[in-house]
């Protein structure tokens, strides 16, 4: 049972490049979330999904896109990377009463 798997763990992007952060869960959870965590700060919600085919914006969605074609996968797409997107990104999945987090992706945009 792998839980929530995020790839890659680390990535350096140049300004203007694009990339997709992958998130996969094997627990058949309907709810999935993407957060970013800036140094010394809390988690800010980027996007979330309540099931396959359904996504909604969180607190800081600008510069990101998501899709949820299957229950298992919830990729986060960064288009035209900017230095302000340098952060640690966490994916989480769960039920109403509990959530499992991935180990995070540290992204640096230079």
């Amino acid at each position, binding site marked *: 049972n792998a839980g929530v798997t995020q790839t890659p763990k680390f990535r350096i992007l140049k300004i203007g490049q694009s990339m997709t952060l992958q998130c996969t869960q094997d627990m058949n959870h309907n*709810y999935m*979330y993407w*957060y970013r965590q800036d140094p010394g*700060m*809390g*988690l*800010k*919600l980027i996007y*979330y999904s*309540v099931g396959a085919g359904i996504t909604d914006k*969180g607190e800081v969605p600008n510069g990101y896109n998501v899709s949820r074609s299957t229950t298992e996968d919830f990729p986060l797409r960064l288009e035209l990377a900017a230095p302000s997107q340098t952060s*640690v990104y*966490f994916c*989480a999945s*769960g039920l*109403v*009463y*509990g*959530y499992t*987090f991935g*180990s*995070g992706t540290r992204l640096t945009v230079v």
Partner: protein
Amino acid sequence: AQTVTQSQPEMSVQEAETVTLSCTYDTSESDYYLFWYKQPPSRQMILVIRQEAYKQQNATENRFSVNFQKAAKSFSLKISDSQLGDAAMYFCAYRGIQGGSEKLVFGKGMKLTVNP
């Protein structure tokens, strides 16, 4: 919109002593879940304890317990017999139950230092 406030950015405690971390939240819902998560330097988010709003009894998990005051919208975490391994960032989180309230909202966190 629901908000979660952790007003103390940092706290310290002596090993073996007790410390209380505070959290307040704002919501118009009557049914919801509250969580405390721990984030050690490894960066992994670890669920410490969970409280269902409809339960009047405070949740307890070994050395961790909460003081849930629904009317005051307060949700504090008490750590008894503090251990060095308790040193971490602690985040309070809220999750509504009603449709349209599926966001899991976090406070800004609090850094706990445990002194030997």
